């Protein structure tokens, strides 16, 4: 038996210890995060899967944990602690670049403690406590990277989300009389239920980075230090998915039922927003030059898939959504870690500044390749399975527009995920990197290899994990997905993932033979291109990744800043309101104050006369 309370305390104390040790030696302090998060992951996974996590509390005040019905929380908990564990391998290699290294180690583990609390509690107030703990501890990880502004964007959206959650919590408390999560979600009804639904969705959207609350996501993922980016994308974003499950699945459907598609209006609206998230994320990802920002926007659109799938509430869709949570966490963490490895070795993530990394970092290349194949939803990786489940449930429901959006996102992801592959890893090596670059050290490769292995495993043999997800479905009251050892049954027939993998494997072998047999290609310099008869002044512009999709981008490039301008507009309005009040009330003239006093009194007196 592993006590959850014990694990939370371990994470908190481990954080303090990592801080103190980090004062003496940065790297040792950061290595401590590997140990602690590894210990927590192993305990949560082992005892969680055995169903023997101990929920009792002896030391922590006011905290309480879920004792039964643990499948949902446990599955999320295992996943996110796993991501924390995997990413922590990167910490010792990155920590010396940070301004406050020991603080980094501490907050890394504090966030982990927060995550544990969120997934395993049965009490809304405790959930909020840990939710906010995650917000502010992860907040301080962000400015260690490139941008200091990203932190305030993140806090703004996060606070808006978590305060919506809090509002929902108190509304439910008023109905249910206690902070119990299941009571609150099941007992709330009427107009309160609509309010709770909207508020929970705001919280989920803000945390997941879904349209229209997505602005912070690319900023944070694009500018944070590489390990932090991976943790955000693979781990902390999933808090949003967790809240979305509460609002969309655990809460009864909201609004009148639309007969044609047999779906409640509330769910349908969320599905539309999810579809928009997919489309906008895809369009923005296509036009990025920075590989990290590109994957960041892809994270956003993947959040959209999860939302769309959760609204449908049937066996294929909900299992598809939960499976997609897992797949996206694995794939995007692997992709971000691979880019992080490149960043550590070269110092940049801009596609137009890199090329030919495959020669020096072949393992990283393979890891990235597998990750993006999974993200694009191509077999035999996990992404294929989850998208297979999601697509057919969308089509089966008859939601044509949303189906189009999901297909658009999927095809769009072909367009963008292969670009960093080509630009960073393939092509010619840049002269300045030719000598100095080496493959990343072993302990950075290890988590990437493990994640890649899982990316393949989830695509070849998904039934093991889907079997577990079926337990979650049962707990949520959704019909279970039909699974045998080697098949998944969907609405349109059965899928044989292993068979597909075998066929793909054969194809890869044949391609490899052809590659060996055929003549080797001639190596040329990166800039050895079509410059005949011209002087080339800025040769970077001739890099093939520059303006790669310019014709598509031109279609929408004038409209990309609408949402950002909208939020900047709000900020500006707040500022203007502040300046306005200052101008009117905070003068150097006391008579103005007296005037206001008289006006307020006058209002009351007139009021008294009139009434």
């Amino acid at each position, binding site marked *: 038996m592993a006590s959850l309370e014990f694990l939370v305390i371990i994470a908190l104390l481990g954080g303090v210890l990592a801080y103190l040790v980090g004062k003496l030696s940065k790297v040792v302090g950061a290595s401590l995060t590997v140990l602690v998060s590894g210990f927590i992951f192993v305990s949560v996974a082992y005892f969680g899967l055995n169903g023997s996590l101990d929920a009792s509390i002896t030391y922590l*005040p006011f905290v309480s944990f879920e004792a039964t019905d643990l499948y949902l929380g446990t599955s999320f908990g295992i996943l996110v602690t796993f991501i924390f564990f995997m990413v922590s391998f990167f910490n010792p290699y990155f920590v010396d670049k940070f301004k406050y290294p020991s603080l980094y180690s501490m907050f890394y583990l504090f966030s982990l403690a927060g995550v544990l609390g969120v997934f395993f509690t049965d009490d809304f107030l405790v959930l909020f406590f840990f939710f*906010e703990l995650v917000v502010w501890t992860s907040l301080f990880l962000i400015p260690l990277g490139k941008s200091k502004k990203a932190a305030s964007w993140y806090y703004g959206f996060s606070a808006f989300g978590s*305060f919506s959650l809090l509002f929902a919590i108190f509304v439910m408390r008023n109905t249910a009389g206690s902070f119990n999560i299941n009571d609150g979600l099941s007992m709330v009804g009427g107009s309160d239920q609509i309010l709770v639904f909207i508020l929970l969705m705001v919280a989920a959207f803000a945390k997941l980075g879904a349209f229209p609350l997505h602005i912070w996501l690319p900023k944070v993922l694009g500018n944070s230090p590489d390990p932090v980016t991976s943790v955000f994308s693979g781990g902390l974003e999933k808090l949003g998915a967790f809240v979305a499950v509460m609002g969309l699945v655990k809460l009864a459907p909201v609004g009148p039922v639309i007969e044609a598609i047999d779906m409640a209006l509330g769910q349908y609206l969320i599905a539309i927003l999810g579809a928009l998230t997919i489309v906008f994320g895809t369009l923005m990802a296509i036009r990025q030059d920075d590989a990290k920002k590109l994957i960041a926007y892809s994270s956003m659109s993947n959040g959209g898939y999860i939302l769309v799938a959760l609204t449908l509430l049937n066996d294929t869709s909900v299992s598809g959504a939960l499976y997609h949570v897992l797949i996206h966490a694995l794939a995007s963490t692997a992709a971000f870690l691979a880019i992080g490895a490149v960043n550590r070795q070269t110092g940049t993530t801009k596609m137009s500044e890199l090329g030919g990394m495959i020669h020096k970092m072949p393992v990283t290349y393979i890891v990235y390749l597998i990750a993006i194949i999974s993200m694009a939803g191509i077999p035999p990786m996990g992404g294929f399975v989850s998208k297979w489940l999601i697509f057919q449930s969308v089509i089966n429901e008859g939601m044509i527009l949303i189906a189009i959006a999901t297909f658009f996102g999927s095809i769009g992801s072909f367009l963008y995920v292969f670009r960093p592959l080509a630009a960073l890893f393939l092509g010619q090596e840049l002269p300045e990197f030719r000598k100095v670059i080496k493959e990343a050290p072993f302990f950075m490769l290890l988590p990437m290899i493990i994640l890649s292995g899982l990316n393949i495993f989830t695509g070849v043999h998904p039934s093991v994990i889907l079997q577990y997800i079926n337990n979650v479905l049962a707990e949520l009251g959704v019909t279970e997905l039909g699974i045998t050892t080697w098949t998944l049954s969907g609405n349109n027939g059965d899928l044989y993932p292993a068979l597909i993998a075998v066929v793909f494997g054969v194809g890869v072998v044949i391609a490899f033979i052809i590659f060996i047999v055929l003549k080797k290609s001639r190596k040329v310099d990166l800039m050895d291109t079509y410059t005949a008869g011209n002087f080339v002044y800025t040769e970077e512009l001739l890099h093939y990744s520059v303006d790669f999709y310019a014709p598509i981008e031109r279609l929408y490039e004038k409209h990309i800043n609408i949402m950002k301008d909208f939020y900047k507009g709000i900020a500006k309005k707040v500022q203007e309101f*502040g300046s306005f009040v200052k101008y009117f009330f905070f003068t150097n003239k006391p008579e103005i104050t007296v005037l206001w006093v008289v006006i307020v009194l006058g209002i009351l007196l007139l009021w008294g006369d009139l009434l």
Partner: protein
Amino acid sequence: MSAVLLIAIPILAAFISIIVKKWSPYMLLFVSFGLVILLGYLPFEIITIGGFSAPYGISLVVDNYSYTALYVVNVLFFLVAIINVCNYKKLGTILLVSLAGLNGLMLTGDLFNLFVFLEISGISAYIITTTNKKPLATFNYLVAGTVGSILYLLGLIILYNMFGTLNMQDMAVRIAASGATDIEVALPFLLMFIGIGVEAKLLPFNSWVKGILGHSNKLTGPMIAGVYAAASLFVFGRLLTEVFVISDTFMLIISVILAFSILAGEAMAYSSTKVREILLFSSIAQAGIAVLIFVSGFTGYAVLFISLNGFSKVVLFLIINHATEVVGSDEVIDLKGLFVNNKLVGASFTATVLSLLGLPLFAGFFVKMGILSQLFSSGDYVFPAIILLSSVVEGVYFVKLLTKLWYKEDNLPQVKFELPLVYLVVVISLLLVVFGLYFEPLHEQALVLVNHVKGVIL
């Protein structure tokens, strides 16, 4: 020990310090420390001065509420005094007078006596703020403060005319017994509300704040924003919970004023580029929230909120005003990177801000949850929404401020913090963390104060 001594000792010391000027700083320290100790031996009682019973004599009330208030005010006062005593030796006498005035405000159970103490503490505040070297701002403060206390007095005269008593409890009883409608007493109450509102920094009666706190130094910043703000809010609480009868119209007006105070305060802080202005506008919003909690009738949490706020503001203003004195500017840009070489002070500042924002692991979280929980329980969804919205804005500008103060590569501001100041802010911020993890005592205190409201005395 009698509560009278809390007022008499500082006054006596003030007189002696006029005669022996050299002693005044030491007497100040000795007296304010002594009062903190003496508070431990204060029995709960109502003292009628001169033995005249309730409606005729002046009474001093020591109950849970005033006891907590006295403790907070005296401890804060002592802390501010100990940091500043060497730099402002001439102010020893006037600080003693203001201590007497503040203690009187907390103790008195008589409405007219309250006015007297308002004036005493007010006048000493004017003199204290002359150390800002901004005479015009002090003059504005004086005018605004005087108008405020006159309005209070006017309201009080009307009440006295109506009910013939000045004693708070007696007044409450007589109002209830007389069957006067809410509308009839709304005018005097509004006058008194505005009068105290000037001192408590409610919009739109608070234009003096910008001049005073915007140019404050290490003494006036913590003193006005910490000690005086706490004291005036405690007075507000006493009046709102024990005397005022709040009619619907009156409530509406108060609600609008408070909502406006909270939202506009945060917006103004958001639009400011000077650190001191950010802090002072944020404290306007906090004052609005405090009064709001009192009006809603949740005295316990209001007292906790005010106390935490007082301590937090002392920390924030001490750090920023010290840095400002050294650097010579309080623009955020000039103070950028302040904490890079002052990590301990920076950590205290950050912890205090996080507590102010109500984030978990800090004492502020518990208080904020308590407040929201109470407000929601009473079925009110509007004010929680306003408080939550305002804290989003508050969070954004504080996070912006923090990242700026923590990050800068070179050309850092050269600020050294003296040991007593560092020690003080670290201890306070550590306490915020300790009470954030172990909030049972706060909870109990809140419950005690909830039970106190209207009833212990009569």
